[in-house]
């Protein structure tokens, strides 16, 4: 049978918890009030649309959580925001289409060789026709050979260019895109740092821009203190809930 002293102790403990709860609510209210004021100042400085729920991203990961410590009390846990959002650069392996590119590229020198062979004919024919005048024929032959060499070099350069473009945009030498089902058709553009996705900022403050008003940083601090007060108030509320139940069971 609980003594009257125990009941009085329970009563006084509950009243103490109620007083602590009210003080924490007061501190919470003060922090929130300061936070709202700073938020209003930030809206005035940056614009109302830039500081609103419109800036909240669709994917969120909480960095402020609570953990249950020994005794059942809640502790506020603040984690470092990870610089998430940046996709891992997909090191796309040489696509099978890239393998076709050398084949395609070889066809061009072959074509050039074929052209050379074809052109070997006419110069020979020219040589036969111009047998009467050797010097003009040889001069014309040299010009044609020079042109063919230039054409072959340009083909060679285009082979490299084609290879580069094919590897970059992951298509074959003919310029056809791979099928969407092709698992190896990774975004080649992701390999290109120029086209890499900008990492989404992990810190919530950066949702509102890279350069934010100082008042928004103040608001972050005020709301952080409000959150800490809220967690402490939640702990005190737990004692407050147990008080009347224990008191009534003791009575």
């Amino acid at each position, binding site marked *: 049978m609980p003594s009257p002293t125990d009941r009085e102790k329970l009563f006084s403990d509950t009243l103490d918890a109620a007083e602590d709860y009210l003080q924490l609510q007061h501190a919470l209210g003060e922090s929130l009030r300061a936070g709202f004021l700073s938020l209003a100042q930030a809206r005035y400085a940056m614009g109302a649309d830039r500081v609103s729920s419109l800036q909240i991203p669709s994917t969120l990961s909480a960095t402020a959580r609570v*953990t249950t410590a020994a005794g059942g009390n809640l502790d506020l846990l603040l984690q470092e925001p990870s610089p998430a959002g940046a996709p891992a650069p997909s090191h796309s392996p040489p696509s099978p289409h890239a393998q076709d590119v050398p084949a395609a590229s070889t066809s061009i020198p072959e074509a050039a060789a074929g052209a050379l062979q074809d052109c070997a004919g006419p110069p020979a024919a020219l040589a036969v026709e111009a047998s009467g005048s050797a010097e003009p024929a040889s001069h014309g032959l040299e010009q044609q050979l020079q042109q063919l060499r230039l054409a072959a070099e340009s083909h060679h350069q285009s082979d490299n260019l084609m290879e580069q473009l094919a590897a970059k945009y992951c298509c074959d030498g003919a310029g056809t895109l791979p099928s969407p089902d092709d698992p190896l058709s990774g975004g080649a553009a992701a390999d290109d740092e120029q086209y890499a996705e900008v990492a989404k900022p992990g810190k919530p403050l950066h949702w509102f821009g890279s350069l934010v008003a100082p008042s928004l940083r103040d608001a972050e601090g005020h709301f952080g203190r409000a959150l800490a007060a809220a967690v402490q108030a939640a702990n005190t509320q737990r004692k407050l809930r147990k*008080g*009347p139940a224990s008191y009534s069971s003791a009575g």
Partner: protein
Amino acid sequence: MAEPGQGSLIAMIVDQDSATGLLLTGVGHSDLRKRTNFLIVDDKTTQSRIEEAFREFTTREDVAVLLINQVIAATIRHLMDAYNKPVPAILEIPSKDAPYDPSQDSVLQRVRFMFGEA
């Protein structure tokens, strides 16, 4: 259930200003199914939506604290008074327009009622 080593979430049913400020602290979370741990209440939010969010947040295993503006809590007072689970803890917080009123707080009302009976 919260992931091990990472802690539980802090859910919110608040107005836009409170949500903007509290989300700055990093409490916002959305899972793979795009379920968020907060509901932003405005003029167009119906009471049934608020009640649905309250029931959802109080039954989720990964939520340890629920913050709710006292003005919004007044609209679902019947649910607040009927709630008696220790987890998640429901905390009524003031909003920008309305300060905290201890006489409206469900927890303090319960304490007053219990000791009033005694």
